[in-house]
């Protein structure tokens, strides 16, 4: 994904798909029981499929706009968010225990001796990182070398 860049705008296709997905997620928040959710999810899919062959972009954009407005008025105020997702109950919970990788360089030799295999491999991993700047592997260990 070296050259993956985001476009400055979303295509109509992307907007429709995003509307469909978030509609399904909010429907899941409203319809707690799975059988009821499946029933209304099928109805929602049918509504989207009804206009999927629309070629007139003006009409398609109007339909999308109407869909977004309907979503806005029917959205759930507390949509279900997965616990580890942004906004979830355990998101970033363990950030305070995370230590940067370069701290391993500061372990005492007696502590490093407890994991000889890892630290021997670590020395090998770090060796290519001291290449000249133009030959360095992008995106790793560049800022923590003295």
């Amino acid at each position: 994904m070296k050259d993956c860049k985001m476009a400055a705008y979303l295509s109509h296709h992307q907007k429709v798909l995003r509307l469909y997905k978030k509609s399904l997620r909010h429907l899941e928040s409203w319809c707690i029981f799975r059988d009821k959710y499946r029933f209304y999810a099928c109805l929602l899919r049918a509504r989207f499929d009804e206009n999927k062959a629309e070629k007139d972009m003006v009409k398609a954009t109007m339909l999308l706009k109407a869909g977004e407005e309907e979503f806005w008025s029917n959205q759930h105020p507390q949509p279900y968010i997965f616990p580890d997702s942004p906004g979830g109950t355990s998101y970033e919970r363990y950030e305070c225990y995370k230590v940067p990788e370069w701290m391993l360089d500061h372990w005492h030799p007696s502590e490093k001796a407890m994991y000889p295999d890892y630290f021997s491999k670590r020395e090998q991993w770090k060796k290519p990182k001291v290449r000249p700047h133009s030959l360095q592997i992008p995106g790793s260990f560049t800022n923590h070398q003295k």
Partner: protein
Amino acid sequence: MHPTSLMMTTSLMTIFLLLAYPVLTTLSPAPRAADWALTQVKAAVKLAFFVSLLPLFLFMNEGVEAIITSWNWMNTLTFDVNLSLKFDHYSIIFVPIALYVTWSILEFAAWYMHADPFMNRFFKYLLVFLIAMVVLVTANNMFQLFIGWEGVGIMSFLLIGWWYGRADANTAALQAVVYNRVGDIGLILAMAWMATNLNSWEMQQMFVTAKNFDLTLPLLGLIVAATGKSAQFGLHPWLPSAMEGPTPVSALLHSSTMVVAGIFLLIRMSPLIENNPAALTLCLCLGALTTLFTATCALTQNDIKKIVAFSTSSQLGLMMVTIGLNQPQLAFLHICTHAFFKAMLFLCSGSIIHSLNDEQDIRKMGGMHHLTPVTSSCLTIGSLALTGTPFLAGFFSKDPIIEALNTSHLNAWALTLTLLATSFTAVYSLRVVFFVSMGHPRFNTFSPINENNPMVVNPIKRLAVGSIIAGLLITSNVIPLKTPVMSMPPLLKLAALTVTILGLMVALELASLTNKQLKTTPTLAPHHFSNMLGFFPPIIHRFTPKLNLVLGQTIANQLIDQTWLEKAGPKALVSSNIPLITTTSNAQQGMIKTYLALFLLTLTFAALLVSY
């Protein structure tokens, strides 16, 4: 000294020493054992509980109470501050209950937090909190009470923000501190008034010398303090936000001990409140509003901990209503029974959350009765006790409160709100049990779910026993200070049970409707009002800061910059001089008629001057 008093004093001092010893050992630089939390802290609290049973039995058998004044801290000529401990029936009954609940929570926390690298520090914080709470409830003077008050507030901040890498946790911790600080303004105001007018902070002296004073101002301060600490309406948003902390913190601080400190303060000050109708009415109305508002908010929440948090806030409102009815002992009874079943509800929630890999949304639970039968059974027992089911713990406290409300000649509006809140309690309790325990699982089975660990099951079972028998034990052994109304029409007697059953029936009907293919969304406006907590947090958290910032900007821009620059400074000089300059330069354009006009004008003035 009488042997009974000596035994009581010794056992109470022993409790303090037992609790303080593990904290003092942490001052040593030597590393602590990996199981220090279990072997030292939990053992200390457990031992302290059994030691605290001795003064409790002495009190129940002989009615022995004690006031121990051990150290003159500081004094002026007329004002003394002593280290003074009061072991009356409130503190003698509350301390064993607090220790029992803490013992169960610490044992549960050893399982819940076993993967935390700083578990020892966590237990130390809980122990420091417990010591501060015991200092608060045993204080015989306002200064000592204030030390305990602030101590529990600070430990609440540290424990809510335990996972400080999470932004929401830090926000919640700050929110708790700020809201509590607003309440502390009231407490400090009351203390200042008492120091200047009553010349003492000792409770006995205050109660005697306050008889001839108008106590409205200090009592308002105390009510504001209770509003902040006990999450009454207006200063309540911090309590549901405090659920960011680990579940043992919610179980200990934010359900059974810390949040009742405000109500406990009012119970302690009840000799001052009972003769002030304004304060009593304020307590009644504030409590009624709180209990209904927070029960309404709990109806549509989906986070299990938030539901229990709002339930706590609703019960605290009920305690405030009881204070407003001038029944402090009933409020205290409700504090005691509430501690058991609310802590148990939190522990059950924590057990379920941990089993489901930190899933807290009840929409993704279900069928837990098959997987964790003990936990879900205790959840049901706790919910039944909360709703006031006859002969469980909550019944012995809630029912007398509703009866006292029905038979009083006070505010009918408060009565209506309280009864409505009682039925809402049944609704959200059934909602929790329905979505969590009943039906089919709505989660993925990523890890095996079981109750094999006794460290989970035993605390919950212990609290379940307390939730069943605590009400009966306390009412059977404690003589009421005020005679309850014994005879009333059957409708009033059965009012609490009736509204609870009505609430349960409505909840069952709504639960059956959720699975029918009717429509996807409920009627949105009432649902959004309840789900968004009455829009109170967004309005207050945005409006007040915006008002302050706009005021600051107005002062900085217009008052300071604009005034000094444009009205009084350089621009003022410019604006005042330019008309003069313009006039003068216009008169000097080289036009003969201007000069002629000026000449004639000057001549006219001179002639007039000469003639007069």
